[in-house]
């Protein structure tokens, strides 16, 4: 089960994910991320502090928007992943294809660098 809250502050859209994203709940992540990406929100931060679990279904959602994020010049970063969740991204090398940082501040400074 997962709860996703979309918070918009000025140009920054934050997706706050709480719970577990698996084959059963990934549809919710897909709908939320899909809506902000198709909206063309310029900065998307994914707050993973409350994310306890992610399986390939969840990874697949992130992977499926990488192209759109790049084409639309959206700046997207994930932050606050615990070690277990971060390890799942690392196993597939997704840490090289997505911007994954420790804190919200790191995410904002990384986005401002680009």
């Amino acid at each position, binding site marked *: 089960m997962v709860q996703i809250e979309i918070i918009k502050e000025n140009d920054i859209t934050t997706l706050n994910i709480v719970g577990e994203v698996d084959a059963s709940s990934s549809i919710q992540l897909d709908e939320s991320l899909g809506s902000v990406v198709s909206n063309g929100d310029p900065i998307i931060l994914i707050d993973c502090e409350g994310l306890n*679990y992610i*399986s390939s279904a969840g990874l*697949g959602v992130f992977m*499926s*928007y990488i192209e759109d994020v790049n084409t639309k010049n959206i700046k997207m970063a994930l932050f606050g992943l615990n070690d277990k969740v971060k390890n799942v991204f690392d196993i597939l090398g997704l840490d090289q294809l997505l911007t994954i940082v420790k804190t919200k501040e790191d995410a904002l400074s990384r986005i401002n660098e680009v």
Partner: protein
Amino acid sequence: MKFNISVPCLKSNLQRIRAFIIDVLREQHLSEVEVHSMVLAVDEVCANLMIHSNNCSPLHSIDVIIIIKGKDKIVFDIIDKGRGFDIRKYPEPDIKEIIRMKKKGGVGLMLVKRIMDDIDFITKEDYNIVRLTKNLQPTG
């Protein structure tokens, strides 16, 4: 030591399977990341079998048996009666291609292969077993 759970093939039951594995592995003095990666591998196989071999039918069930072989290895037998699918024959996809095609799936079995040390597929007369083996690192 042997532990088992049986659940109907509904994706909402994946959470029950994960909780069961965490409960069993909690006693094994493994790191949290290690336990989590094994939970993930079994979850991926179960999700695959539920969706592709059993069409998420609650009339079908899936069994997970955990066999603790001393301090050396842990074996996970995942048993179903659905359409057999030898996951060892699954070709490893190219991640960059998946991203280019905007596909939402296809990396689950890749995770399983990278996490587990051995994957077996056994077909019996009326059921199939996916056997995942994880060798444990000796501690201190």
